[in-house]
């Protein structure tokens, strides 16, 4: 199988000695949609810029279709970069902007025009093709930038927070277009974002980064449901994280003693008996039960003992969604939401005692940091 992009223990150290990226390893097959996700300053953009050639590579190798590109300048790499601020050339009209890469490559005019026309049609830019980019909307400009980057037929399209400057509705629309475009063209996309919803809905695999290091590389669903590290557990999704000590390990399930009781979940990573661990419970996995006498035992029997008591602090209904804010013993709060049918208004009152329960398979146990 040929890899479109390979990063081998790539590192970046700035001139002042600060490491920005540490031992980045990644192999991307052709046509994959990869997202680099992480908080600002985690090194995701630096990594992207090393692939593009805008940043020098301090250590390791970057390979594109098997060829080492470390020493190639950006204009000789088979990559195209899409920027958050679009970076369109304001002194050229839309058509010239899009065709500029081909123009410079010296393609005959007829061939060039045909390619430009095709991409203009694909992205629905016919109406604005002869306008200057300055008066166009953000969405149109980002489409122009995409067209300009794609028309040169790069092996890899690099996108640096391309939706960051768009408003929420437009972002959603362009997101869908982007996904469709990528599937149709079959080009490898590497997409940098700090918005997890973007990464989760667009990509085939997500690389979560923190402080220059990769925390986890997983497909979206696995990332969401099975975090590998404490950072991922608190960065992705809405998880309740409970610290404790591992009391038992069997068939991939771990039993952990926590201040809220003995809880169990699927072990992920090097969990060992007697070691410190965290139980990660997604908000979506939690079921709410009324705290009537005897309920705790009957619920515990169904959920492998995964029951904790809580007290309702707030209950709101917004449209079709009920929000519950529940205080756990020890001062921790859990936010839950569900369709209004599930948590009907009036059924839960602030100050009321309830039980929270989840099945062991939906919880994940990871080694503590």
């Amino acid at each position, binding site marked *: 199988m040929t890899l479109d992009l390979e990063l081998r223990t790539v590192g970046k150290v700035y001139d002042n000695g600060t490491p920005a990226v540490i031992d980045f390893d990644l192999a991307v097959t052709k046509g994959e949609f990869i997202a680099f996700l992480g908080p600002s300053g985690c090194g995701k953009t630096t990594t992207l810029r090393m692939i593009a050639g*805008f940043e020098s590579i301090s250590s390791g190798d970057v390979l594109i279709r098997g060829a080492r590109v470390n020493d190639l300048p950006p204009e000789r790499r088979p990559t195209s970069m899409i920027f958050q601020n679009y970076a369109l050339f304001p002194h050229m009209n839309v058509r010239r902007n899009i065709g500029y890469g081909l123009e410079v490559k010296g393609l005959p005019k007829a061939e060039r025009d045909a390619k430009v026309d095709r991409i203009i049609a694909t992205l629905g830019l016919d109406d604005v093709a002869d306008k200057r980019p300055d008066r166009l909307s953000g969405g149109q400009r980002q489409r122009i930038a995409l067209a300009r980057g794609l028309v040169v037929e790069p092996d890899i399209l690099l996108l640096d927070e391309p939706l960051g400057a768009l408003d929420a509705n437009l972002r959603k629309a362009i997101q869908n277009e982007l996904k469709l475009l990528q599937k149709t063209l079959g080009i490898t996309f590497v997409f940098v974002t700090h918005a997890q919803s973007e990464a989760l809905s667009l990509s085939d695999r997500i690389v979560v980064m923190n402080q220059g290091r990769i925390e986890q590389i997983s497909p979206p669903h696995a990332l969401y449901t099975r975090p590998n590290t404490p950072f991922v557990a608190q960065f992705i999704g809405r998880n309740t994280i409970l610290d404790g000590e591992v009391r038992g390990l069997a068939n991939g399930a771990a039993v952990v003693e926590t201040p809220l009781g003995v809880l169990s979940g699927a072990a992920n990573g090097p969990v060992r008996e007697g070691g410190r661990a965290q139980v990660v419970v997604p908000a979506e996995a939690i079921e709410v039960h009324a705290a009537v006498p005897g309920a705790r035992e009957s619920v515990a029997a169904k959920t492998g003992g995964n029951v904790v008591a809580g007290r309702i602090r707030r209950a709101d209904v917004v449209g079709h969604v009920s929000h519950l804010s529940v205080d756990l013993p020890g001062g921790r709060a859990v936010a839950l939401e569900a369709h209004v049918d599930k948590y009907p208004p009036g059924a839960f009152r602030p100050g009321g005692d309830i039980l929270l329960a989840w099945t062991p398979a939906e919880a994940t146990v990871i080694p503590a940091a």
Partner: protein
Amino acid sequence: MHSTVIKPILAVYTGLFLLFLYGPLLVLAILSFQTGPEGGPQFPIIEWSTYWYQHLFGLTPPSRIAPLPIEESLVRSLVLAVATMIVSTVLGVSAAQAFRTRFRGSGVVFYLIVLGMMVPGVLVGLGMALVANTLGIDRHWWGTAFVLHVVYTFPFAFLVMLAIFNRFDQSMEEAAWSLGVSPARTFRKVTFPLIFPGVLSAMLFAFTLSYDEFSRTLFASGRDLTLPLAIYGTFSVEIHPNVFAFGVLTTLFSFALLGVYAVLMTLSVRRAKRVAIQEDA
């Protein structure tokens, strides 16, 4: 509340500023219409006339007042200003481009460049004269003086371009590179058109500073005088309103220059605005 106090103060301040800026010029302009050849450079105006303008162009009957010896010096000053403008702007743009990436010793180099506009002109001029004498180099307006003009105006061009590059969005260049455009071509086709308003400003600075440079040129230019030196030379004998007439014409020339600059500027600012909108969105 504040504006009732501050606004009148600001208005007075602005009025005074304009008065001191244009007052001297206005007095000169009025006196240049003094009658000649008997009228002198003082009030009252005996009779309004354009005598001194005609005198300037040698259209008056010969009199005891010699025509201004400016013809050759004007040409020299213009040639010198244009040459200085070209060299300083090229140097300024290149140096500012170099400063876009921090390099070792960039701080020192920065102050070395800026020093050229800080040091007292008379001293530099004198120093240049001494150096030229020591090395046996003849002093000429196109040689020693030209070098000093460049040293003097280059920092201005450099600072203007530094400010321009400071606001320049580098992702535009990176976008071009990633499309396969070489850095040299990117500079010509993407960067330069976008920094052009700044280049115009740098050119204007260099030209005007060189055109009326006096102190450095005084010692460094040798035998052939530039315009400011030639005009100053006439002062030492006796002042006639023909100097004022010439002053008015030069000022009009400067305004014309500003006019050209304004037109070119509007054209490119219109373009720059588009960039700004693009960035804001």
